C-alpha cells in the first residue's frame, strides 16, 4: 500500500536524492523537471501529493499552483512548496495561490515527512493497492 508523490524540481542532483529518500520511506515517486512537465504528469497520474520547487524553467511553482487551482481534479491535491526564499511576501504569495505548506531550503527530511504525513491524513488520500 503506497501513496504516490509527484516531485517537481529542476536540479537533477537534489531531485534524485529526494526521490531516493521518499522511496526509502515507502512512497511511490514520479518526478518532473519543471512545472509544465509536472502538470502533465499530475493530470495523467493524479498523485496523492505534490512537492514542488518555485524557481524552475518553462513554468514556475507559482504558475503551477495557479494551474492546479483552476483544474477540476488537481485543485484537491495538496502541494508542498520547497524554496530557498523565506521572505514573508513569497511565503504568503504561495499560500494565497493554494500551497498547502511552505518549507524553506535547506530542511531536514523529518520535517518534510511530517508535513507529508499530516497532509495525507487531512486530505484523506487513500493509498493505492499495488
Amino acid at each position, binding site marked *: 500500500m503506497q501513496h504516490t508523490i509527484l516531485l517537481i524540481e529542476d536540479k537533477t*542532483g*537534489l531531485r534524485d*536524492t529526494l526521490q531516493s529518500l521518499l522511496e*526509502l520511506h515507502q512512497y511511490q515517486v514520479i518526478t518532473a523537471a519543471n512545472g509544465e512537465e509536472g502538470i502533465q504528469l499530475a493530470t495523467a497520474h493524479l498523485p496523492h501529493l505534490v512537492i514542488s520547487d518555485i524557481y524552475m524553467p518553462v513554468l514556475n511553482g507559482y504558475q503551477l499552483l495557479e494551474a492546479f487551482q483552476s483544474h477540476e481534479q488537481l485543485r484537491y491535491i495538496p502541494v508542498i512548496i*520547497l524554496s530557498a526564499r523565506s521572505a514573508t*511576501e513569497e511565503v504568503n504569495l504561495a499560500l494565497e495561490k493554494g500551497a498547502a505548506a511552505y518549507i524553506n*531550503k*535547506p530542511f*531536514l*527530511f523529518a520535517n518534510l515527512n511530517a508535513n507529508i504525513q499530516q497532509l495525507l491524513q487531512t486530505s484523506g488520500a487513500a493509498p493505492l493497492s499495488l
Partner: protein
Amino acid sequence: MKNGETTASQDAENLLSNASNIIAITSHEFKTPLTAISAAVELLAARLHSSQQMDAFYEKNLSRITTEIFRLNSMLDEMLTINSIMSGRMSLNKEMIDVVQLLTTLRANYFADPEDTRSFELHVKGIPQGIFADRNQLNRIFMNLVGNAFKFSREKAPLVTVDFEAQRVVIRVIDDGIGIPAADLPQLFQPFFRASNVDEIAGTGLGLSIVKTFVQENNGTITVDSTVGEGSTFTLSFLYHSDSL
C-alpha cells in the same frame, strides 16, 4: 551632461545596488546545493541504518556535517538580512505582540540542536501588556540573543526575565558564559565585529548588528553588561502599545 552619461554619485549608487543584488542572488543560490548536500547526508545515514552498518563514528560525523550545513545557512540568512537593511529593502509589519507568549513559543521550539538539551528559564514579573512591533523582527532578536546565550554559556541554562514596568517592558537575556572583554563592548553592535575571545566559536559578526537595527526599528533600546569569565546580560526595553503611538 550627454545622454547616457552618469555622475560619479549615480555610478556609486548603481554599483552598490548591483552589489546588493549579487549578494541576494548568490545567497539564495547557495541554498539549493546546501539542500542537496543535506539530503545526501540524510540518504547516506538512512542507507547505513537500513543495512545495519551505522556506528557511533559515522553517526557523529554525519550529524556534524548536518549541523555545519545549517550553521552555514544561518550565516547566509544573516548576510541576506544585513543586505536588506543596508539596501533599504527591509519591510516592517507591526502588530500587537504578547512578548511572554512569543518567548514561550520560542522556548518550546528551541530544541534544534541535538547536542544541547538545555532550555532557557523564563521569569515574568508585573501585569503583562502588549507592545506594537514586527513579529518576525522580534523573533529574530530573541532567537539571536537566546542563541548566543546558549552558544557562549557553560553550565547553567540561560535566563530570560520579563519585567512589565509602568510604561515599558524590560527584557533581560542572562548567561553565565565567557563574557565580553570591556574593550570590545563599544564596537559590539557594529557589523562584522567579533569579540576578541570568540575565535573558536563560529559566527559572522552580523547577528548583534541585526539585533540592534531591529530593536531600533521597533522603537526599543538595547544595552549590555558583561564581565569576562562571569557572563553577560543583554537588556531590551520597549514602550507599551499606547505609549509607542
